[in-house]
């Protein structure tokens, strides 16, 4: 998968809110410009307190999922009651991404890692791209979401956002991405993580507005 991705997922959008993290993706796996897989789940439970979402090549993320299982298993073997959190997961995988890029064989993904960081008792959200650029932020988006969702998230984000407000903000950005991203779908998955609980919702279809007067009866 060094040269080019084949089956791809589009943008991921995520933000922190008061007490947790919310991540959303659409459920489309594109085979080039063909909308081939309409029920691709791009948000997974990475470990007990972490959600991970991806964009880019699907098969590369399936490898990441295998790594996640192995890490979780080893964590269990230690049997010390301490488990990897979102920070550990993000830093680990950003190193993996960087190593792969240094061997000119990258994992063609942008990973978004969000969850509850027990060691610091706070929500954690960060991302790493396919060459290992890692950062943490209150709002995060990948792909076209960086250009379209991030401005909206930055304008609408507050420290004391409730889950409902965060959900609404994220939903707005996913709608806009559906309007303007040519490789997107209006069927999305939203996942949340708070202290002690993670939830990945079932896919939902978004209501979108296409009936402007100018579209129904174009001038001239």
């Amino acid at each position, binding site marked *: 998968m060094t040269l080019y991705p084949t089956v791809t997922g589009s943008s991921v959008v995520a933000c922190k809110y008061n007490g947790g993290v919310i991540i959303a993706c659409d459920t489309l796996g594109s085979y080039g410009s063909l909308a081939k897989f309409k029920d691709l789940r791009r948000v997974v439970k990475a470990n007990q307190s972490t959600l991970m979402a991806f964009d880019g090549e699907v098969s590369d993320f399936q490898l990441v999922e295998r790594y996640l299982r192995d890490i979780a298993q080893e964590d269990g073997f230690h049997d010390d009651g301490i488990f990897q959190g979102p920070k550990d997961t993000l830093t680990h995988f950003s190193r993996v991404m960087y190593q792969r890029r240094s061997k000119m064989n990258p994992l063609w993904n942008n990973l978004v890692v969000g969850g509850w960081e027990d060691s610091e008792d706070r929500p954690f959200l960060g991302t790493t791209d396919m060459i290992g650029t890692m950062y943490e932020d209150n709002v995060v988006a990948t792909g076209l979401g960086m250009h*379209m969702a991030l*401005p909206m998230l930055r*304008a609408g984000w507050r420290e004391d956002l409730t889950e409902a407000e965060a959900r609404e903000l994220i939903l707005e950005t996913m709608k806009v991405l559906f309007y303007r991203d040519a490789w997107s779908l209006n069927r999305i998955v939203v996942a949340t993580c708070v202290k002690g609980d993670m939830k990945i919702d079932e896919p939902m279809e978004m209501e979108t507005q296409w009936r402007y007067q*100018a579209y129904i009866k174009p001038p001239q």
Partner: protein
Amino acid sequence: EFPSSKYGGFDDSNQLRNMELSKNLSNMPKARQTGTTICGLVFNGGVVLGADTRATGEQVVDKNCKKLHYVAPNIYCAGAGTAADCRMVARSVSSQLELLRLETGQTKSRVVSATTLTRRHLFQHQGMIEAALIIGGVDNVGAYLYPIAPHGSTDSVPFATQGSGMLAAMSVIESRYKDNLTEEEAVQICSDAILAGVFNDL
């Protein structure tokens, strides 16, 4: 051996020289670009156009550049791309429209006239004139908004954005646009869209 020397249009006689130069010089001088956010919205009874004011080459060349160009008393044009190209195209079309108004005795020009003249000009130059424009105006038939790409393609839309900040601006407009906006609402959305481009792009 360049066709333009026979048929007019752009003078390409420096192309060979430029190709040689680019082999030897490590940083070729670039045309002044406006890294821009411009947008336009149709509201109930009119059109609003907005633009940021930064012009960039390698640095910020102009902090208060004007990107909204007069085309006719009832038509304005926002321009992204090469600043000079936008300005000169707007000026040229504006002159042509004024002459047309004088010849036909009209006081207002049609927005489609401005659009057609512009797109013919741009297409003739095959995209070499790097002007991405949004023409907006109100004439006797209604309020119109036409984004025009450098190669000369046009759309007729209720809202449009251009420039490097176009995605940031579009996200604001897509989430807030409704039919039959009031002028105040439209101006507010337009300025928020430009702000999104200013703070998140450029």
